[in-house]
């Protein structure tokens, strides 16, 4: 009997093994991004922008030209790249600390200008790399190293929802929140990425895909439990779905 490979890992990726902790969903998300760029034939003309966070070394993993940006500034770096190299596919890969905290202005303004770039936004409700501090996305009651008694509304406010926030920025073209906690959702997440990169290829503007992600290490959980925790706690506060789609009208017409 012959065999046919139905899943070959490492598409759109270098041979480098990830440094991520066991069971960290950063890996799944990387795999999806690599796969989509490869399948769409975009990988060789892509420029990725790694941010500062656990995925800081993403520039070692994606098999395309890469920049490593200062903490929070990836959308500005991507703007610089895209403006001078409009034919390249430009994406950023950013954590929630990076994008929603220090880099909020850069993200909102890239959307505001309608930059034709794609942001991969990995929301794990915590600062992974620096050891588990509170992020703007940390849930109420969630313990972190800087919210030792759980995040309190009176002290730190309620968690920021990035897709919802950006949905009111005129320049954003497509915003979707996805999850990778099971194969079905992984498949859906891949579709979202395809849509985002297709929009970019069609020069239709700013796209952001938010991934609900885990941090088993700093959440202090086993990897499988982390997935369950994300489903039970994060998704209710961060509902999955499309938050904005400005291509719809065009499609219908």
């Amino acid at each position: 009997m012959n065999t046919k490979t139905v899943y070959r890992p490492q598409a759109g990726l270098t041979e480098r093994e990830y440094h991520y902790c066991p069971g960290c969903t950063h890996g799944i998300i990387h795999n999806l991004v690599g796969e989509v760029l490869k399948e769409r034939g975009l990988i060789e003309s892509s420029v990725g922008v790694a941010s500062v966070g656990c995925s800081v070394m993403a520039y070692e993993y994606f098999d395309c030209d890469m920049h490593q940006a200062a903490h929070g500034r990836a959308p500005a770096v991507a703007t610089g790249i895209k403006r001078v190299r409009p034919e390249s596919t430009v994406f950023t890969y950013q954590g929630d600390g990076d994008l929603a905290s220090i880099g909020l202005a850069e993200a909102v303004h890239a959307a505001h200008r309608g930059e034709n770039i794609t942001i991969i936004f990995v929301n794990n409700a915590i600062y992974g790399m620096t050891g588990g501090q509170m992020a703007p996305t940390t849930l109420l009651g969630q313990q972190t190293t800087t919210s030792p008694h759980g995040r309190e509304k009176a002290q730190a406010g309620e968690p920021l929802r990035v897709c919802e926030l950006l949905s009111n920025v005129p320049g954003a073209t497509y915003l979707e929140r996805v999850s990778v906690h099971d194969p079905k959702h992984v498949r859906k997440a891949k579709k979202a990425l395809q849509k985002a990169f297709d929009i970019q290829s069609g020069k239709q503007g700013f796209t952001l895909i938010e991934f609900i992600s885990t941090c088993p290490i700093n959440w202090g959980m086993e990897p499988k439990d982390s997935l369950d925790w994300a489903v039970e706690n994060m998704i209710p506060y961060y509902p999955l779905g499309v938050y904005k789609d400005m291509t719809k009208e065009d499609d219908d017409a």
Partner: protein
Amino acid sequence: MSKVLMKGNEAMALAAIKGGADAFFGYPITPQNELPEYLSHHMPANDRVFVQAESEVAAINMVYGAGGAGARVLTSSSSPGIALKQEGISYLAGSEIPCVIINVMRGGPGLGGIQPSQSDYNQITRGGGNGDYKVLSFAPENLQEAVDLIKESFPLADHYRNPVMVAVDGLLGQMMEPITLEETEKTQAAGKKEWAADGGYGERGYRNRIASLYLDPYKLEEHNLKLKGKYDEMREKEQRYEMIETEDADIVFVAYGTMARVARNAVQMLREEGVKVGMIRPISLFPFPKKAFEALPERTHSLITLEMSLGQMHQDVQIINNGRYKLDFFGRTGGVVPEPEEIVEHVRAALKEDA
């Protein structure tokens, strides 16, 4: 070539276009606004990129992206804006990305004022950012020199893969002076940059990465030593200065930019009184023009640093000096441009004291 009268900020903007700037990213701040304003019109008209960024921080990081993607990039700002760019400049140096930064200096600290100043010398030459890096930096004294240095800065930035800063005080940005710069002059163009991460992997056959991260301290040290090699090359090749009537000078001023212009008058006035004064005018701030001091005559016995600050370059004079000359300092700060008479008066008083 005939001369044209231009406002400093506009002349510098035009020089950047002629220098081959593919893109400009900046944020408004007085007293350099005419520069981005000019470019907002002329960059698109020349099929180049103009983006008004949301902040100085965003602007310098756009520079990082565009520069890392191989374009010739310009940004401009003024003192507090430059302070905000320091992390970004440190990243640019660390990732070896060429770019040109124009700094039209104003008085500080903090919001300070908007009048001309030279109190950014420290943040220009010492880096305001973290790490052992340097920014090649020039300080012209008039618009022609500014224009020429800016045009030259783009290829220099490319050569060293390092930021180059051209620093003028607000007066140079705001003044009008005739310059020679043909509108029709062909613009320089950067060659293809083989290291640029621009999406050209397919063609190129290998992957490019732009990063300043080295988790292994030994690798980071190696990287720093490589950078140092470039700075040493700058020290060797890029020291620029002008020696003004130093051949027979007993006393030598050290001054740059507008202060040097004011001091030129003071030199004349003092010479008319029989005081043999000369001047070293640093044109490069980093590298500091050590060679100029080596070229002073035996008879020189004193150096007087003149600055529109409370004495920042003076530290470099002290270092160079190493005990050789009697040192003195005169400065005005906060946006005050001194008059030549004040310098003359200062020298007279010093001579009286010595006598």
